[in-house]
């Protein structure tokens, strides 16, 4: 029933335009991943050839074999999982708290605080490259899980996004809860958290991706291989043999296989997160 109404409403030129836009976008967005998959599962010789490869000349798992032979991936994978999950959970929790604080209408210094937070997002990494390292050295955070979790533990981005999603919660709901005698914490947990679940999931996922893919910080903080994260390990594999006078480098199919290996966990998490992202929650359900 719904469907027929929809097609009645969205018809003619608009419908065509939407479909065309969707298809074109999907195709050009999908291209890179497809290319990565094809090269990653091509034979070593084929993967070295030039040009854009969108179909197999010869299917082969040599690339994956290379990766698993030259690197031990279990430990870095667990490191990544641990560091990223712990870091992101703490981060989203603290960001939610801070975001909630920032929507208090009459809070004194509210704008000053948000400026204070936003400034941290504007600092170019090159400005603090040396001093961040110095700080970690002073605090004894080099070569430690604590260092890997602590650096970048709180991000202005998550706070600002959480603040935004909380703002869309109708004030009437909060008022109703207040009349019912809910305390500050009660309102936060009972009203704001459930309604902002899509936002929460989005922020969680965005930060998860950022942390998972982050290479620069771990490369700086960690020289002990037992603490390598997955992307760092794979990057090291790709780079390790790259010397200036042209010694052997990892073959293309191995590089692409490494990319597939790092990306798959993220895709799985994304598909999981979509449960929250796409279904949405109707306000009515919360009201009742």
């Amino acid at each position, binding site marked *: 029933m719904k469907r027929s109404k929809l097609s009645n409403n969205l018809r003619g030129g608009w419908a065509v335009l939407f479909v065309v836009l969707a298809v074109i976008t999907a195709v050009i967005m999908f291209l890179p991943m497809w290319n990565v998959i094809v090269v990653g599962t091509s*034979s*070593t*010789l*084929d*993967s*070295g*050839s*030039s*040009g854009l490869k969108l179909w197999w000349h010869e299917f082969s798992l040599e690339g994956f074999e290379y990766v698993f*032979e*030259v*690197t*031990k991936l279990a430990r870095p994978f667990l490191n990544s999982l641990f560091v990223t999950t712990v870091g992101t959970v703490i981060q989203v929790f603290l960001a939610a708290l801070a975001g909630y604080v920032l929507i208090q209408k009459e809070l004194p210094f509210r704008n000053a605080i948000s400026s204070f937070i936003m400034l941290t997002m504007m600092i170019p990494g090159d400005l603090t*490259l*040396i001093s*961040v*390292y*110095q700080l970690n*050295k*002073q605090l004894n955070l080099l070569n430690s899980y604590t260092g890997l979790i602590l650096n970048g533990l709180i991000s202005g981005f998550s706070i600002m996004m959480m603040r935004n999603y909380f703002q869309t919660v109708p004030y009437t709901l909060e008022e109703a809860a207040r009349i019912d005698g809910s305390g500050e914490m009660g309102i936060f947990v009972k009203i704001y958290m459930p309604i902002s679940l899509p936002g929460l999931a989005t922020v969680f996922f965005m930060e998860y991706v950022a942390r998972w893919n982050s*290479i*620069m910080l*771990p*490369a*700086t903080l*960690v*020289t002990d*291989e*037992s603490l*390598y994260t997955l992307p*760092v*390990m794979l*990057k*090291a594999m790709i*780079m*390790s*043999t*790259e*010397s*200036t*006078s*042209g*010694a*052997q480098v990892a073959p*293309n199919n191995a590089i692409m296989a490494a990319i597939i290996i790092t990306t798959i966990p993220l895709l799985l998490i994304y598909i999981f997160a979509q449960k929250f992202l796409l279904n949405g929650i109707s306000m009515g359900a919360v009201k009742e």
Partner: protein
Amino acid sequence: MQKRWLAAGMAGVMAAGVLAGCGGSTSQATTSAAGTSSSSSTTKIAETTKGTAKASGSVKILSNVTGGKDDEEMALFEKALSEATGLDVTIDKPASDYDKVLMQKLGAGSDYDLVYVTASQYASLVDQGALLDITSYVNNSDILTNNIDPQEWKDITIDGKVYAGFNKKEVHRAVHINNTLLKKAGVDYKTVEPTFDGYYNMLKALKDSSDDPEFYPLDEVMSQAWDLQPFFAAVGAKEGVVIDDNGKKYAPYAEDSAAPVWEWFKKLYDDGLLDPGSFVDKTKDMRAKMEASSQKTAVTADWAAWVGLHNSNAQAAGLTTDDYEIVSLPGLQTPDGTYMLGKGAASLFAVPANAKNVDGAIKVLEYFATQEGGNLLSSGIEGYDYTGTEGNYTQTEIGKKHGNDHGAPFPIYKDYKPLFPYATGIEEAMSYAKYAAIDTIIPNESDFKEIVGKWGIRIIKGEVFTTEGLQSMRDELVERGVTER
């Protein structure tokens, strides 16, 4: 609260400054000591021989490519190096972004005895006084002076002083030719005349014998001016920056006398012999086009070692030398009948100004310059990468994967005998080593490449007249402080 942190921050900076200051002044002291002692060389000898003899304790190394390929092998590598030198050697090898990590560690006053640097970084660090003058140590070490070609030392001497030892012997770049395609075109590479016309005819023959519209016989990484030396030899122009009779820096590629080479490239481009991809390709793309699986180009200029790599990659995939073979030539002949090839800028182990164990560092550098040290740096660890007895070694599976490279595929020891034979074609490519010379070490190498590449491409594409383009090239080189005239 914020104020207190600010104060703490300031205090931190001051402290760092003071600490760093100490390091700086001690290094200066050492420098001047070494400098003045040239008049009384006997004391210097006594001083350093004593030093080398008592080398002990621990040595910390920050390395980029040198060492084991993973934790397990790195531990064995450190053990082997420690046993051979009687020191306690530890190696830190950042996973990636080495340049950044190096900068951070030096910026925070890190405590290494040896750090891996490129020639360009070496020049910058010397400029800032961040490295220790080890000239006297080098002069007084029999191993360092006798086992290494004196020219190598000359290449890294800045204002009469040396601040580093060698990681490996740098090889040169030569002209690579796909011999299989060339044979198909009916040309014997040995008979190609080393002149503009000779090479033009060879490229033309290659193009004419191919049905592939995407095939271009010559591919170069023009945008980085990499590597044009074998062709600029025709006018005797050396790559990079050269110092003229008046002590002024200039770039021979940008001189009007280099115009014939640029115009020759232009002609190749106009006639469809130079790949238009040359303007955007990186070395990786150039190599991909040369690989057996693509063969989209037949002539490139690349490291001598890549002749062997192309060949062994193809052989690993089951091809024979009849199916695919890369050979090499030394390029065009200079006006005085010889050749000019570009050699890799040195990769070095420098001694930081605040190194704690200079004697230990020297000891490690000495070991790197011996046959045994060379074995470790190239073939790896005995019992892990290879097994057997002397003269009868076989590589393990791991050793084969590591391809005789643990930091130095070609060790610095001048009489080094490789444990395992080189791949097909390398011997020939290496035989051109006698024509190779190193570029003058300049801190702004990246500016040079960018400017020369940019204007060179404009000339080749015909967007500017050759003389105009060269004038602009020279102007911009001067403006960016690369050259002085």
